[in-house]
């Protein structure tokens, strides 16, 4: 489980930092420079990164677990991924 934890931690750090940076820049553009459209767009980009982070950490965990041949936990991660993706699809069609 150690390799899974380090990959997941790394992914969360990158996702969190990228998202926070983007949102901060977007807010600065919006409030300091008065660039409304650009600011909102950059904030939104940061929010998209944030929203995708948990989903990608499930996929990353699945990948590492398969490499580790930990098939029980790989199956659990796969199940979560399937449920997540079907939830997103369902939400879009609703």
């Amino acid at each position, binding site marked *: *489980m150690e390799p*899974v*934890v380090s990959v*997941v*931690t790394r992914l*969360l*750090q990158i*996702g*969190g930092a990228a*998202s*926070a940076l983007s*949102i*901060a820049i*977007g*807010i600065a553009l*919006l*409030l300091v420079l008065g660039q409304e459209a650009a*600011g*909102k767009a950059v*904030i*939104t980009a*940061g*929010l*998209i990164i*944030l*929203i*995708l*982070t*948990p*989903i990608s*950490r*499930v996929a990353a*965990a699945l990948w590492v677990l398969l490499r580790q041949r930990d098939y*029980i*936990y790989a199956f*659990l*991660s796969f*199940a*979560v991924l399937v*449920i*997540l993706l*079907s*939830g*997103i699809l*369902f*939400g*879009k069609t*609703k």
Partner: protein
Amino acid sequence: MTLAATTLMIFAVSLFAGTAGAILGLGGGIIMVPALTLLFKVPIHQAVAASAVSVIATSTGAAIAYLKDRITNARIAMLLEVGTTAGALTGAFISGLLEARWLFLLFGLLMGYSAYAMYQARKTELPEGVKPDEMAVRLGLSGSYYDQALDRTVPYTVARTLPGVGLMYGSGTIGGLLGIGAGAFKVLAMDQVMRLPIKVSTATSNFMIGVTAATSAVVFYVRGDVEPVVAGPVALGVMCGALVGTRLMVRLKGSTIRKLFVPVLLFLAVQMLWKGVLG
């Protein structure tokens, strides 16, 4: 109020929500939704969407710290996530079919009872005499963590694993239907049913809530409910708050965390009952 002032104030409230959420294993939704709608007059759809974003932010920020501190139990999380995401899907499916009002009343009462149970357990530092069940043994769910407040390594094991997964399903459904309470329910299930140490419960809950909130957040985004001017400062504030909250949590004693939980559960209960009564 100018945009700059509003943004700063939303950021400040989010800081608090992120800090509290990281300590208690919650997403901060119970603070964010009322704060955004009542204090900042944000339309409810945007407030709920921003709240989902704040849950992801708390989860991400807190998970980084707790994973590094080796308090989160990744195995338990991966197992329980199956239940919680399936529940979220169910909640979304049936949300149009049920009269939400009765659910709010029911879960409001449940939360009230949980507050009482947590109050009864407030002096408990660590669980005693927990016997692992077969599923826990086969999946290797036992673990240990270093408790900074107690200055020792605490080994622990897991009981009633399958009922735990079932309760996670319930918590996911509640979160999907009501929009609040999922994190609290997870902590309660892990604490009272699966008999995990409270810090492991809150850290593991923090890890899990991001994934369920992400599903909702994608839907909100597609519907156009994610307003950057609201969700942006919320996300940033909550992430910063979570960084602070994690540093606090490891220094607190388990019994202190339990005592902090009681008013939060009561607040949740009141919010749910309020919604149930008003319809």
